[in-house]
């Protein structure tokens, strides 16, 4: 059974836990003389209290309180391993409580592949500090100096005489440390603490670095664990929010009589926010289909024709430009160039298209609000709901329960605020879930973009000037979390003005070109508010699109210089860890160097291989794609991928391997299939037929993963880096197979056939 579900406290317990009602239930914790002075129950949930991070239960089991969450990529077990090592307990004795605002500090939720990179840091420190205090306490109890004690399996004993011992359970089980730690005053990903204890050195790890099986698997496979979609409360109403299929509409009128045949269903409305609620979910669904609404079109043709989206981007005014990397004299280099290579790459809007539409349950009461959410950032749901309802955040508890996947700011964030608003308006607990079109047409989108590469080569083919500029919609047209209702559909529907942020990114690499410019330009959104094409974070925000361009462009330079793509990269990448992943991927894949594409033209099946490499916040990754191109059908099959991955210290190799596999195949899906379709007035991708994703027919036959472990280097992220190299690896393999470049994603059969016909 999942500890998380056990901890769904009753309302009264919640108020206690959140500090609204302090009761002194537990006796004083006897843990050293100083600690014994402090009586009382669990101290308030603040990062400065050790008890906010770790607890020892009466039976000696350990609970780690983690302010991020595991979306299925092995974070739960990885955190347990880290805490187990610091505390010297068995891994299976550590439970990890995740993403509940009443029980965990705001570590930023799932965000930017930082679960281990930054999320594990305070947990490691807290566990080390807890061990220090427990050893100190045992030292008092046993009358032996701490240096003469050892810990094994949660039992502190004399090194010389194991019969002299005290277990963690005896020392503190069920009571609290009441011990202060130093907090860095940061909220979110950067939250960290400083403690007196020194965490162990990697050479002392016993379980970190080994593979342990995830604990969420049986609950998922036998379906004994609850998803957010399964949360049910007494007197709960089911709701469906009605979104106009057309963008840029306000509500002119609602014909409530149109649903009178559905007994018990009714309309709930605040300004342009319209929903139907009913006791039975099917009645809510039926009513949502029957309800007649007349809409006002506030803007004619809000979108450009889809076929012209990249021209729109090229011509659009630049809201902001940032020259992120500027080295040497780029203009000068181009003036002396023997040869200039230029290319542009295009990437479409893409949808989160989560496996199920966003869902949330909210219970808004006078004495407090509870929201069950699948959002990957429940602490920000807490803030957003509090602001939306005008109540203090401490009156809101957001509880993360696993949802239908989450790879960024998807529709789960909107569902949470929808549910809260509906519960407020109806005075009842409300469960809301979208229909399929809400999850594809109305989720925040990964931004469309155009990427321009330009390079100056001297007579020998050496790159003497390099420029790569991305231009597109902001990666944060709405913010990456829902802490501000202005970033939610509910908020925009009730008239809150949006608060767009302007941001994009540049390639992350270590190419040592002497004169180099990496820049981005962001253009205005197509619509100011409530846009189905509003952009936000989608797994590895702007990583796949930028690297789709930049790593193809590097390949184009290799071809221009008449060099093998691997050798060309290694010529310019001197950073040892970067070079190592490129070499490792090539070697494992059995890379056959050639200075020009294979470009076989006979037979229906053409095969090719391509490489791409990138960095991401400290992680290095390279992938070799081996593909087959069916000339007649235009189908590309990503047959085999070889990924070399270096994220510093590896916590759980198997978990890491599976996470990389998911990245590869999701990346392949986005490379070959995914493109949000739209016409002048609406998004026309509304289901899996109009927004196809990869199916098993197109899954690779093999994925080889080379894990490069650096125990001496602090762990960096793994949730996203490997997705960003897949699009270019596939496109480069296509070039190798055919001698033809595909510079517009996705690489659909139609585009393949057209490109081959032109060649």
């Amino acid at each position, binding site marked *: 059974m999942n500890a998380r579900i056990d901890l769904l406290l009753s309302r009264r317990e919640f108020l206690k836990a959140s500090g609204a009602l302090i009761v002194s239930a537990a006796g004083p914790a006897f843990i050293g003389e100083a600690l014994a002075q402090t009586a009382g129950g669990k101290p308030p949930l603040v990062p400065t209290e050790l008890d906010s991070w770790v607890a020892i239960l009466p039976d000696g089991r350990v609970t780690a309180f983690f302010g991020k969450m595991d979306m299925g990529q092995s974070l739960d077990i990885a955190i347990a391993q880290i805490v187990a090592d610091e505390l010297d307990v068995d891994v299976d004795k550590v439970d990890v409580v995740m993403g509940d605002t009443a029980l965990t500090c705001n570590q930023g939720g799932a965000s930017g592949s930082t679960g281990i990179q930054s999320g594990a840091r305070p947990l490691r420190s807290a566990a080390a500090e807890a061990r220090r205090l427990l050893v100190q306490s045992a030292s008092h109890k046993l009358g032996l100096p701490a240096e003469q004690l050892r810990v094994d399996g949660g039992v502190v004993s004399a090194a010389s005489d194991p019969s002299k011992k005290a277990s963690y359970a005896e020392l503190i089980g069920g009571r609290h440390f009441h011990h202060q730690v130093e907090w860095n005053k940061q909220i979110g990903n950067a939250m960290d603490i400083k403690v007196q204890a020194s965490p162990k050195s990697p050479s002392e790890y016993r379980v970190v670095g080994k593979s342990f099986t995830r604990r969420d698997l049986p609950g*998922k496979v036998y*379906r004994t664990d609850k998803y957010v979609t399964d949360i049910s409360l007494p007197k709960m109403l089911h709701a469906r929010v009605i979104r106009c299929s057309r963008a840029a509409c306000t509500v002119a009128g609602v014909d409530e009589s149109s649903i009178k045949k559905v007994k018990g269903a009714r309309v709930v409305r605040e300004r342009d926010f319209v929903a139907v609620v009913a006791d039975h979910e099917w009645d809510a669904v039926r009513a949502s289909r029957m309800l007649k609404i007349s809409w006002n079109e506030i803007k004619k043709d809000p979108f450009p024709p889809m076929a012209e989206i990249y021209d729109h981007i090229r011509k659009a005014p630049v809201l902001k430009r940032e020259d992120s990397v500027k080295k040497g004299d780029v203009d000068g280099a181009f003036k002396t160039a023997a040869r200039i290579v230029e290319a542009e790459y295009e990437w479409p809007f893409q949808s989160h298209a989560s496996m199920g539409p966003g869902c949330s349950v909210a219970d808004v009461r006078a004495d407090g609000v509870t929201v069950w959410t699948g959002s990957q950032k429940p602490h920000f749901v807490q803030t957003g709901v509090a602001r939306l309802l005008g109540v203090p955040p401490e009156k809101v508890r957001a509880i993360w329960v696993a949802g239908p996947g989450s790879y960024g700011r998807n529709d789960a964030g909107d569902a949470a605020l929808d549910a809260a608003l509906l519960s407020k308006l109806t005075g009842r607990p409300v469960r809301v879930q979208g229909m399929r079109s809400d999850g594809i047409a109305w989720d925040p989108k990964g931004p469309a973009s155009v990427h321009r590469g330009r390079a100056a080569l001297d007579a020998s083919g050496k790159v003497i000037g390099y420029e790569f500029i991305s231009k597109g919609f902001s990666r944060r047209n709405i913010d990456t979390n829902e802490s501000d209702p202005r970033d939610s559909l509910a908020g925009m529907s009730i008239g809150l003005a949006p608060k767009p942020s302007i941001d994009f990114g540049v390639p992350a690499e270590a190419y040592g070109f002497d004169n180099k410019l990496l820049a981005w330009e962001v253009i205005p959104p197509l619509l100011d508010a409530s846009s189905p094409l509003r952009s936000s974070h989608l797994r590895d925000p702007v990583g796949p699109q930028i690297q789709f361009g930049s790593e193809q462009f590097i390949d184009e330079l290799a071809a221009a210089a008449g060099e093998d793509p691997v050798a060309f990269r290694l010529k310019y990448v001197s950073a040892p860890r970067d070079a190592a992943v490129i070499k490792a991927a090539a070697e494992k894949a059995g890379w056959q160097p050639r200075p020009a594409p294979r470009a076989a033209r006979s037979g229906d099946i053409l095969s090719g291989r391509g490489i791409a490499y990138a960095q991401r916040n400290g992680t290095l990754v390279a992938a070799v794609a081996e593909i087959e191109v069916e000339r007649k059908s235009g189908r590309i099959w990503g047959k085999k991928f070889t990924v070399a991955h270096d994220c510093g210290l590896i916590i759980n190799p198997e*978990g890491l391997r599976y996470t990389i596999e998911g990245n590869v195949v999701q990346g392949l899906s986005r490379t070959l299939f995914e493109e949000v379709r739209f016409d002048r007035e609406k998004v026309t991708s509304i289901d899996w037929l109009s927004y196809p994703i990869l199916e098993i027919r197109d899954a690779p036959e093999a994925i080889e993963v080379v894990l490069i472990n650096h125990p001496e280097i602090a762990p960096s992220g793994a949730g996203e880096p490997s997705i960003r190299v897949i699009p270019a690896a596939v496109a480069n393999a296509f070039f190798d197979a055919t001698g033809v470049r595909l510079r517009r994603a996705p690489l659909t059969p139609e585009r393949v056939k057209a490109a081959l016909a032109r060649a």
Partner: protein
Amino acid sequence: MASIKFAVDGKTVTVNADPNMPLLYALRNDLKMSNPHFGCGLAQCGACTVHLEGEPIRSCVMPLSAVAGKKVTTLQGLGTPEKPHPLQAAYVEEQVPQCGYCINGWIMTAAAFLKKKPKASDAEIREALAGLKCRCATHAAIMRAVKRAQTQMA
């Protein structure tokens, strides 16, 4: 409204509801069996898959009236931790699911397929699993698990 009697996971149940209501809502709301998921409501993803008389069907589009007097099996009825179906055991051993929301479709479809064709080739397995979605993109692990289960079932 109609009173419709059928069997779910070996138990006889009666649901009073709109006969046009999809089976999924009867399972989730009336019978409080939350294991089949709503994914699309359009029979395009598989998250709602159950067996009807041993055949995989999409419960999100199957009218309740069509199951009257018939036997429905859900993923929970396929196996339990104590007595797992080989595919469930393989799913745990191969650590297949990430979010896990899609697995009813994969396991229920593969279970019915392998029963009919235990020695299916890789290509036949892929063909049999066409149409199912997995957004976490665990397809490589799915193939490993199905093949592992195959060795148990053969």
